[in-house]
């Protein structure tokens, strides 16, 4: 089980409540759950990394539980109840320095401090479809939903939102334009936020400017846009809709740069690789697809048997990962043996011990700095 989970570079949450790991290098997919205790109310709604080293995956289930999955051990290590199914499914999960941020469909945004049971509650609106965290400023989150405008919250001052968007002007019949944010993302290196709506618009908001209305609006197709993701190269966004159409849009003029083909059903989850020009998409057609953003061709296609809700990519190279992990694993094993040897030894002088330590540190080669420190302490 441990080996399996370490080779996986893509994590996918399914509607049947199964967490799936996919290894592109080995062309394999694994299920991480007990097949006999499956149930629909464990449906995976959200996935996010629990820590910066990407050793923990947080899994938000439909029944209100947030489970912690360790990618090193390959098992669920922790489960905590963060709300119940009456409040709706999770629409967002985020981790700040010391706390977990959850958001549910009813609009209740909660901050769970580590170690304490009391929570900070924010009401973000009536029906929130998505909550996302700003990756550069981790205490900023944005919410948006059906008839709920885009709001940016500072989690350190949870009383009032920093930014509340204003609905666009009435249309040519002087009727109110309906709002329905389905997904959003912070544009890195700027304050801007890009959203996609159920009325097939893509909008860019700029909290830094005095204008609260969108600074750019584009349209794609004629079906609701369900997911969006920002690629590593700035200036574009990838959006997907309910008919399985996916396109790269230019954020400067709002034009379609190109379509990503091959999907058969609605897109539910979309994520671009943080460094490489790759985008992973999953949805109701039960396939995980990896497209290249350079030539927009389909690179990989994996059948995963259940309807898929969300996808999570690791930041390492998707295909060339397993050898690196293997090496790491070996190093760790050596480490473990060495420690035991050290524990059992008693009557050695200080000098000899130091020299040996140095030798060992040199021998292990690829050791991370933290491990070295540990060894030195001992």
């Amino acid at each position, binding site marked *: 089980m441990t080996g399996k989970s370490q080779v996986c570079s893509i994590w996918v949450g399914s509607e049947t409540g199964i967490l799936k790991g996919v290894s592109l290098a080995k062309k394999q997919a694994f299920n991480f759950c007990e097949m006999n205790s499956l149930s*629909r109310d464990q449906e995976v709604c959200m996935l996010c990394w629990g820590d910066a080293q990407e050793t923990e995956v947080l899994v938000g289930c439909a029944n209100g539980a947030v489970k912690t999955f360790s990618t090193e051990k390959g098992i669920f290590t922790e489960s905590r109840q963060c709300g119940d199914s009456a409040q709706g499914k999770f629409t967002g999960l985020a981790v700040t320095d010391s706390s977990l941020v959850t958001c549910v469909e009813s609009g209740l945004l909660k901050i769970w401090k580590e170690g304490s049971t009391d929570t900070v509650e924010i009401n973000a609106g009536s029906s929130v479809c998505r909550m996302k965290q700003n990756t550069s400023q981790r205490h900023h989150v944005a919410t948006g939903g059906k008839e709920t405008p885009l709001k940016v919250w500072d989690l350190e001052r949870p009383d009032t939102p920093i930014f509340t968007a204003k609905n666009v002007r009435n249309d040519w019949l002087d009727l109110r334009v309906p709002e329905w944010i389905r997904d959003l993302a912070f544009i890195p290196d700027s304050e801007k936020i890009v959203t996609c709506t159920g009325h097939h618009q893509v909008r860019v908001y700029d909290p830094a400017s005095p204008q609260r209305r969108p600074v750019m609006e584009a349209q794609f197709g004629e*079906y609701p846009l369900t997911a969006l993701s920002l690629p590593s190269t700035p200036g574009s966004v990838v959006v997907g809709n*309910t*008919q399985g159409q996916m396109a790269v849009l230019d954020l400067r003029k709002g034009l379609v740069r190109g379509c990503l*083909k091959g999907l058969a*059903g609605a897109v539910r989850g979309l994520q671009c690789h943080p460094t490489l020009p790759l985008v992973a998409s999953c949805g109701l*057609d*039960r396939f995980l697809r990896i497209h290249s953003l350079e030539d927009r061709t389909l690179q990989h296609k994996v059948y995963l*048997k259940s309807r898929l809700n969300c996808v999570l990519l690791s930041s390492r190279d998707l295909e060339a990962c397993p050898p690196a992990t293997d090496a790491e694993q070996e190093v760790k094993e050596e480490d473990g043996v060495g420690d035991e040897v050290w524990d059992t030894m008693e009557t050695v002088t200080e000098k000899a011990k130091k020299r040996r330590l140095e030798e060992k540190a040199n021998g292990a080669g690829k050791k991370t700095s933290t491990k070295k420190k540990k060894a030195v302490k001992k």
Partner: protein
Amino acid sequence: MDSEVQSESRITNKKQKKKMKNEKIRNKLNQEAVEKGAVKESENANAEPESSFPPPFSVSEIKNKQRRHFMFMKYKQEKRKEKLALKKKRKKERDALGDAAPPKPVPKTIENQRIYDETTVDPEDEEVAFDEGTDEFSAYFNKLTNPKVLITTSDRPRGRTVRFCEQLATVIPNAHVYYRRGLALKRVIPQCIARDFTFLMVVNEDRKMPNGLVLCHLPDGPTAHFKVSSVRLRKEMKRRGKDPTEHSPEVILNNFTTRLGHSIGRMFAALFPHDPQFVGRQVATFHNQRDFIFFRFHRYIFKNEKRVGIQELGPRFTLKLRSLQKGTFDSKFGEYEWVHKRHEMDSNRRKFHL
């Protein structure tokens, strides 16, 4: 049949011999064909000195249309002769070998050359079994609900569509035909749910011909949209039996192998009551072939232990899946599980989705 053809070809051969003396070009062509076929050695020997194979010209280069046509006909005849000879030879070999003859090669068809579909359902797969066991149709398959079907049409249906609906209602037990009255489907669906209908069936028509079918499972989907073609009503059928009885029929689902096919098959199965009444000896068939679903309705009788007779009761029609949508009918905001995209998906003729 074979012998006739051969005798004909022999006659033409004789005629050729006569003409050969007159026509050089013809001679060349004839000789070329003979060389290919290697039918008669004597002819070959006669023609050999002048032969240059392949001939320095092609038939299409002949300027005279009459001549060109004539030459082409001749060329075709030679080819056929050759083919027949080969066939005869093979048959002889087969006969000579008797029982030891190798089995006849299976002809290539689009179906047996089908590209393997990775979504093909493995009956032992736990995950798929769980998925199917807890889907929207599980209530029916666990025998918790009884099907009740509402059949309606697009607005202002004309003759054929009305009759088609009526005949569908005789095929599907517990089906009610309602006049649409210009109602929106989104408003019909809650009323249907309140009245415990499990299916809503909408027949669309265009130019008085039924051409579309929306099949919506209630109360929470899914919704399938089919193209309907080749509708044959009872009146238009030959050798049709008497009108069907009210017994609930047996259902045959053929060739629904992929995951999508399974979902569609389950949908059709859920239209009919759980336990067929075998007294009625009626059977409804949904046969999937190359993604077209053929519907037939038969009555059968066991004539003796080996033979069974069938009699078609009608109607018959062909369905082709256009889309499968999650949830009840919502063409604007609904999420589609599968949409048929012609230019993307139909690039390969050997790829099938059901």
